[in-house]
């Protein structure tokens, strides 16, 4: 029924990427450019007495200190509305609160000179405090405050007990529901910090323009919020900051906010009056810039004998590190994931975000959903087992599906579920994996034991909703038809490499019935696009794609108007549009009058030649829903009971993403989502030694993520798409990026249980932990 949607086309940037021609921030060179380096705090918690810049300056470097940047607190993430934005960051600081926090920066004409100037800076410390690395110690009475006062919105607030933010919520009568329950299970879960391992370490280039404005190229998931933050921090009008969209080597949340490197590069550029490039090394990126959040969760839940879930209680303590990126909103989304997974009749939640002297945490793919889903799916599996009900049956009976209220992204973002592929995915997936024959762990013997587990989850498609709420979420698109009938598509929305913009090009192509190859994706900037909040929350296709579709639909209306004039039809409604394979163009015709036809290219040419004006549209679009994309993973693992090594054997990855626009790229999201989830489940972790130094020390050589050889063979990885249609999405589409990894940890942990009969409440489930647990059990 579609000409382009659901079909595979070459990616618009595929050849350039494969041949190394794409320019990332790192590759940008501007004549006369200086190279920056950041002076990172060697202590996790300290106070600087003075910075002696003279030696560095005598080498010819420009030096930036906390005195040379505005003393203004900010939050690098501008997605919550201002009242809910907690500001505790400075561009450079005299009070470093984590190892690596930027104290000063230098810029010099060569990279080597910049390094020498960096080493020539003399930073004298007044005090070095013992770092607080544990959130429970941070909250204990008498603990040194990491921040005394911060700004919420525009108001100063005191920080007590190092608690950065709090959220409480309750619904229904938990005590009553607990009394009615036949089974009650309470468990504590721990998820460590992890590094995103996005391919591209962060960087920025800032160039002063002759008119006094600045142009910025940087690693970011959001060019507009970067523009706004630079404007706010440096007090420059927004019309004088132009942020260019540059290809980015993966995000996964690591550039969901405006990176400190960007702000420091701007500071160096403003001070020197020269273009400045500042890029982080891999080690700086992973050790000193960002990690994901650390979770300490407690879940208590109940169900009745007939298999109905009654209540859920959830305590969630987040170790956020030394600054807030989105510590408060995450308390809300974590609750949202919890509430929206199952139909709890009563819920009680207490969430706290706690400061520690560690690198600040930011969102990682799923924004809390993989962690919460793992905890909930473990408890749900345990309840089903205790009640003697098949875990799939138990899930089907209790999950939130079509027609129900759903609010993944927090209490202020609610909408009704209109498409739901869970029953189909569970039915087909369980058949493919051989669920019925998975066996009981108690009956499994031998050194190598196999187990099958399920994990069911979802992610929202964006953070829209019928009410405005506490989260900013809208997008925009400009579509214009060139004088030869080709189309320029101009959007601020960033493509992290997953092919989001190829999906948009197809959506536009489908709307206009021209081939996707005629749609040019323009590398735009903030000056020439309308606002888009950010590529996050799996909203790229659902929200951005719908904005593109609406702009294309408006263009289509104009094309039809002009065509009606050309074809002498009574009005545009009399016309039909069709893709003509031979002409490789849209053909507009009068139904029943085959000689009255004109191609879209011809319409464009005539409109130009006869001075009718450009055919174009600019749209700003807010989605009134954030529909869930459901995913169901079935995973088979093999545990070597003598070494504790767990191997993935087979995977059935089921996704309900509505209409699938890019089938191969969507399958790629599931392969990648599994790989990332697998890594979280069994492999990677950032832990710290007592002085606040990450235990993997300073090198990516010791931060291990799986390689192709550590993952299931491609032929053992089955991808299923549910046959659903989301009425609010572009051509029925929903999101996928995060849903693709959300239930993976849960499925892997449940599979390990099915193999060896042991549950793990702490990830990663390393061979060391597995072997220890097996030995303990005896």
């Amino acid at each position: 029924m579609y000409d382009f949607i659901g079909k595979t086309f070459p990616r618009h940037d595929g050849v350039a990427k494969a041949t190394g021609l794409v320019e990332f921030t790192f590759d940008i060179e501007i004549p006369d450019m200086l190279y920056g380096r950041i002076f990172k705090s060697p202590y996790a918690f300290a106070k600087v007495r003075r910075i002696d810049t003279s030696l560095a300056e005598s080498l010819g470097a420009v030096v930036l200190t906390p005195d040379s940047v505005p003393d203004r607190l900010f939050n690098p993430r501008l997605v919550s509305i201002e009242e809910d934005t907690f500001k505790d960051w400075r561009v450079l600081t005299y009070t470093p609160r984590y190892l690596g926090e930027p104290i000063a920066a230098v810029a010099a004409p060569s990279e080597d000179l910049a390094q020498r100037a960096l080493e020539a800076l003399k930073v004298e410390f007044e005090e070095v405090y013992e770092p607080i690395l544990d959130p429970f110690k941070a909250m204990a009475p008498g603990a040194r405050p990491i921040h005394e006062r911060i700004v919420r919105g525009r108001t100063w607030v005191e920080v007590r007990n190092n608690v950065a933010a709090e959220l409480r919520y309750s619904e229904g009568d938990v005590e009553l529901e607990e009394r009615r329950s036949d089974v009650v299970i309470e468990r504590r879960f721990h998820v460590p910090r992890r590094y995103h391992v996005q391919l591209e370490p962060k960087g920025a280039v800032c160039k002063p323009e002759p008119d006094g404005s600045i142009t910025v190229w940087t690693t970011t998931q959001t060019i507009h919020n970067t523009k706004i933050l630079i404007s706010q921090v440096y007090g420059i009008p927004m019309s004088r900051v132009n942020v260019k969209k540059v290809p980015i080597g993966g995000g996964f949340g690591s550039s969901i906010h405006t990176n400190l490197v960007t702000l420091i590069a701007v500071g160096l550029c403003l001070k020197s009056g020269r273009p400045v490039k500042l890029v982080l090394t891999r080690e700086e990126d992973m050790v000193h810039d960002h990690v994901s959040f650390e979770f300490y969760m407690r879940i208590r839940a109940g169900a009745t004998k007939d298999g109905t879930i009654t209540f859920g209680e959830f305590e969630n303590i987040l170790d956020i590190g030394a600054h807030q990126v989105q510590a408060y909103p995450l308390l809300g989304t974590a609750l949202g994931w919890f509430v929206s997974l199952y139909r709890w009749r009563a819920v009680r939640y207490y969430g706290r975000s706690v400061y520690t002297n560690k690198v600040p945490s930011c969102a990682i793919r799923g924004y809390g959903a993989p962690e919460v889903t793992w905890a909930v799916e473990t408890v749900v599996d345990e309840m089903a087992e205790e009640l003697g009900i098949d875990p799939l049956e138990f899930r089907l009976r209790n999950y939130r599906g079509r027609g129900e209220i759903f609010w993944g992204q927090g209490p202020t973002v609610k909408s009704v579920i209109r498409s739901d592929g869970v029953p189909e995915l569970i039915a087909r997936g369980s058949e493919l994996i051989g669920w019925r024959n998975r066996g009981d762990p108690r009956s499994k013997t031998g050194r190598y034991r196999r187990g099958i587990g399920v994990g069911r989850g979802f992610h929202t498609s964006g953070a829209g909703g019928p009410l405005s709420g506490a989260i900013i979420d809208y997008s925009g698109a400009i579509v214009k038809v060139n004088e030869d009938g080709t189309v320029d598509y101009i959007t601020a929305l960033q493509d992290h490499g997953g092919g989001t913009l190829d999906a948009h090009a197809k959506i536009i192509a489908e709307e206009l019935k021209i081939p996707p190859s005629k749609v040019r994706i323009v590398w735009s900037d903030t000056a020439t696009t309308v606002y888009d909040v950010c590529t996050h929350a799996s909203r790229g296709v659902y929200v951005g794609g719908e904005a593109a579709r609406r702009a294309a639909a408006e263009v289509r209306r104009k094309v039809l108007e002009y065509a009606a004039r050309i074809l002498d039809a009574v009005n545009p409604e009399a016309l039909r549009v069709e893709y003509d394979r031979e002409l490789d163009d849209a053909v507009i015709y009068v139904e029943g009058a085959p000689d009255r036809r004109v191609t879209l290219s011809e319409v464009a040419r005539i409109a130009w030649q006869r001075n009718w004006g450009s055919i174009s549209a600019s749209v700003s679009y807010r989605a009134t829903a954030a529909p869930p994309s459901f995913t169901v993973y079935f995973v088979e693992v093999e545990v070597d009971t003598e070494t504790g090594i767990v191997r993935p054997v087979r995977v059935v990855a089921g996704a309900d993403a509505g209409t699938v626009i890019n089938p191969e790229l969507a399958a790629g999201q599931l392969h990648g989502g599994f790989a990332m989830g697998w890594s979280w489940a069994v492999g990677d972790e950032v832990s710290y030694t007592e002085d606040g130094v990450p235990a993997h020390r300073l090198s990516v050589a010791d931060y291990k993520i799986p390689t192709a050889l550590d993952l299931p063979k491609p032929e053992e990885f089955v991808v299923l798409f549910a046959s659903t249609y989301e009425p609010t999405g572009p051509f029925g589409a929903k999101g996928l990026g995060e849903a693709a990894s959300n239930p993976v940890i849960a499925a892997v942990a449940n599979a390990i249980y099915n193999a060896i009969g042991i549950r793990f409440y702490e990830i990663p489930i390393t061979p060391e932990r597995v072997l220890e647990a097996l030995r303990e059990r005896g």
Partner: protein
Amino acid sequence: MLSVNRINTYRIPFTFEYYRPRTLREALEILRSVEGAKVVAGGTDLVVDMKFRRVEPKALVDVSKLEELRYVRLVEDYVEIGSAVTLQELVESEVVRARLPLLWEAVNSMASWQVRNIATIGGNICNASPAADTAPPLLAYGAKLLLTSLDGVREVGIGEFFVGPKRSIIRPDEVLQAIRVPVHPAGYGWSFRKVSRTSFDIAKISVAVLLKVDGGRIRDPRIALGAVAPTPVRARSTERAIESLSLEEALEVGPRFVEGDIAPIDDVRSTAWYRREVAKVLLRDSLRTAYERSLNPGWVHEG
């Protein structure tokens, strides 16, 4: 105070001289005359250390292109391997595959193709990491190292070469010229096993086993382990304990003794406890494999 600002992995953050001598003799002369000079081959260990400033040599003497160090030769009853032969060349060498199957098995498991294309066997040995994967097989074979300086050549057994983590008896003015490895003894079974965090990683534990089976009894077992002691080690007491035992007995006895032969520690890759426990498992697995291979003459190169 951590020297975080002195590390810069985009550049080697200090300056040094770089020499590429045309002959070994020239290399030895530079090493003798230039203060603070250090040999570099593939640089896959050394350059990483330099970027992190764990070492700051004043000069590098590149031996990777010296033809005198780039050969694999069968000489009577041993194979001589030039120190600058790359790991990938060893993987592709028929002589190594046929005459030193235990070494071949280890090298084939190392790093990635890209790294193997530049990493050398000499670098792996001279880096003296307790986890160097070529060390256990070379220990089991009883390899000899030819250390050359302007004063001449000294031949040392690989067992005397390592003295601690990243420490060996090589002098700053010496070059490891070649490794002499006795050819795989006829009728011996072999096995190399390691576990690491991912398939592309330095070992948490590695085990190399060579043994012969005679009338259902294990003879002349040679066992070496990596990453479980300050240096790669021969498990002498285990070897003595399983001499003349049946496989079943050896599987029972060997693991008990191997504990005494190793001294693992906790580090970023694993824990001492895990290493001890899994060293026993890998030993058992390797004994079984070596035993089977010894009984199956088709597996072993004859003559």
